[in-house]
């Protein structure tokens, strides 16, 4: 079994590295096609031809795109993300000030949304057709259809502007006690949960119902198992594969796709860093962010697959 798992992991890691390489080449090509470069964006209204030429030279933008890509790749292999083109910091410095914040927000959101989604999803599947199932299904569809900027803005208007219970902005650096953390994270986490819970919940419900209707569950029932045992010990392990994948997708979204939440609450995460990088044509920064998002996604999906395999007796014992 372990040999099988090792082979699988090795293959996955190899494929992941290849994907990263392809993605980096594509991002490099796309950013090269965007109008303007770091020099013109930085100078803005001050962009005289001489100033642009001088700055291009200084930033090393004079070389051709493939040459720059090769340089960047060479440094990356040695673990160096390079220097930011527009700020006087290295990309690693910029990332290290933001990445922990993003991870913290993702972790808190995951800690709340995953158990909530799983429990609700399982209950809805078990009681499918009941008023509870219908209420949950309708509710999630309604919530997932509302764009998150609307959820966030309404939350701010209600809880911050009118009731004044919560702060409208979340500075990650001001947090020193648990109470402060709860107050600062309440609205961003609420907003993100609205998006992620719905997806995971619906996937859990669908996967579980699929299993509960399978012939082997009939067999389990005939064997005499009922209720919790039937669902948790027999049906759920078989449904964990798709559920874990849905969870992985939601988590990868939390890592890099929460730009709306970061903007509205002024939360210092990596999404805003990357958008800023794109706007300023700061290629090394954009590349580093892309690599991190992409790697995070691949790791999460791989973990989800492993979960599915380990939880599923048929896959676990395959020769």
């Amino acid at each position, binding site marked *: 079994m372990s040999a099988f798992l090792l082979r699988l992991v090795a293959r996955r890691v190899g494929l992941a590295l290849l994907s990263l390489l392809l993605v980096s080449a594509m991002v490099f090509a796309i950013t090269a096609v*965007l*109008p*303007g470069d770091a020099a*013109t*964006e*930085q100078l*803005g*209204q*001050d*962009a*005289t031809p001489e*100033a642009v030429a*001088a*700055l291009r030279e*200084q930033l090393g933008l004079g070389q051709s795109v493939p040459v720059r890509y090769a340089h960047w790749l060479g440094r990356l292999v040695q673990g160096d993300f390079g220097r*930011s083109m*527009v*700020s*006087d*910091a290295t990309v690693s410095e*910029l990332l290290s*000030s933001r990445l922990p914040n993003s991870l913290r927000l993702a972790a808190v959101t995951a800690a709340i949304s995953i158990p909530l989604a799983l429990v609700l999803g399982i209950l809805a599947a078990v009681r499918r057709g009941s008023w509870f199932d219908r209420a949950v299904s309708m509710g999630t569809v309604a919530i997932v259809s509302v764009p998150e900027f609307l959820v966030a*803005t309404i939350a*701010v*208007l209600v809880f*911050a*502007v009118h009731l*004044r219970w919560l*702060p*409208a*902005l979340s*500075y990650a*650096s001001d947090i020193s006690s648990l109470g402060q953390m709860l107050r600062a994270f309440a609205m961003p986490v609420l907003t993100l949960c609205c998006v992620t819970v719905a997806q995971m919940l619906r996937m859990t419900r669908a996967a579980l119902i699929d299993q509960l209707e399978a012939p082997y569950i009939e067999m389990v029932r005939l064997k005499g198992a009922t209720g919790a045992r039937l669902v948790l010990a027999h049906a759920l392990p078989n449904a964990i594969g798709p559920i874990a994948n849905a969870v992985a997708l939601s988590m990868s979204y939390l890592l890099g796709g929460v730009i709306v939440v970061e*903007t*509205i*609450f*002024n939360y*210092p995460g990596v999404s*805003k*860093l990357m958008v*800023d*990088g794109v*706007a*300023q044509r*700061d290629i090394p*920064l954009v590349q580093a962010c892309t690599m991190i998002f992409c790697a995070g996604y691949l790791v999460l999906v791989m973990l989800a697959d492993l979960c599915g395999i380990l939880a599923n007796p048929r896959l676990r014992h395959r020769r």
Partner: protein
Amino acid sequence: MPAMSDRERLHALLGEGEGERLLGALRRGLTRRELLGLLLKGGMLAAAAGSTAGLALSAHAQTPRRGGRLRVASAAASIADTLDPAKQANYTDYLRGCMLHNGLTTLDGRLAPQPELAEWFDSADARSWVFRLREGVLFHNGKALAPEDVVFSLLRHKDPATASKARVLAEQIDSVRATGPREVTVTLKQPNADLPVILGTHHFHIVPAGTTDFSAGIGTGPFRLKEFKRGLRSVVVRNERYWKPGRPYLDEIELSGLGDESARVNALLSGDLDLVGGVNPRSVARIKATAGYDVFVTRSGQYTDLDIRQDLGPGASPDFVLAMKYLFDRPRMRDAVALGYAELGNDQPIDPSHRFYFPGLPQRAYDPERARYHFRKSGLGNTVVPVVASPVAIYSVEMALMLQQAADGIGLKLDVKRMPADGYWSTYWMKSPIAFGNVNARPSADILFTQFFKSDGPWNASRWRNPHFDQLLLLARSESDEARRQQYYADMQTLIHDGAGVGIPMFLSSLDGHTTRLKGLSPVPLGGMMGAAFAEHVWLED
């Protein structure tokens, strides 16, 4: 408090906005004569002017409170945020820079230079300038301000390795020398009567000699740096050894950049911020309707303009350019697009608050008949003319659509092309035959004219060539006599108004939202928050 009743009287006399503007000016130490001039220029009756000038003393008497922490957000946040004055690029940088640093001079409400770190400055020929430094000024690290700090701070802009944003301005400096224990002499390549204005801008703030690492934010300014997080926020605390007695009033300021306007306004109204910049006119009613909050209006020199290239396309015909200029319904644009938070423009770039504004130039009005006449004369006929606009040039899309409607009425077909903000300046502005641009307020008429209207100016967007204008520009630059400069600049405004391919329908006001506890703001037409220099002037009331 007597000051309050005076304030009410002033408001009753002049209206709230004008009254506050004057109070601010008085507090900065405007003389009686200057005040009278200001009022008369605004069309005030001499009687009212006289009774207002009597208030000067009580305006000063309004005692600021010491202490408190102010939370401020501006609209710009970027990973390019910097503590190096030479590299400052956005408004958040300027705001922070003014907290940490001083310049040799500072610009007042009419953008005239006033003594700051230099207690006195003069020049006989506008070419060789002598600055006498103030005594007893200390940097945050305890070092006393000396001539070599000034020499270093000015000369570093000329070094290409500094990558200074003010390098073009610094090019005219020939040498900077310490000519005494407290004296610095700046020699220019050509005379420039505006050097004290240039040295009052944010990039020319003074840093200790030999600084290469700017991360500590060492300056002579009213606040010391406590925390700096790029693209996020800065925290500064009171400089107890600041050279201006009694200043600053605040203990601490937290400055952040918050790009989303509604998020800024919400955070203000929820009590999480005390002062926010870049307020949209559409949010004003909401802020004013909330008890304890108000909006501070700065009539700034910023404008959005229509640039018609005169070297190709339809703009090659002067009649077409004139037709377009007559098609701007300026009062309607001001009221409908800017909701009244703008001043009428007259197709020349000097705004009415500027000391060199020429009020004698007749206002160009919306005149479809004249537009039709000039359009016919241009012989353009049924050709569809593309006009490029973008949200990044503030209000330009709305202005373009109003222009299109007006043009329809005279049989001129305009095709409004709305372009995304991303990459607009490098791809469309100055390149398309007709495109909207946006020009931030500049500290001096000379800089504005040199950059945007001189025949070889880098952003002469309409490619206007006028040798007479270029001549006047050089004459005015080397002229120290204020009255004669006034005359040159008046002539130049007339030339641009008549001939350049640039339509300037209005000057945009900057709006800041603030808690009513915040006092001491007065307008500086460079932009909101007193042209970024608010930090040492404001205080929080109980």
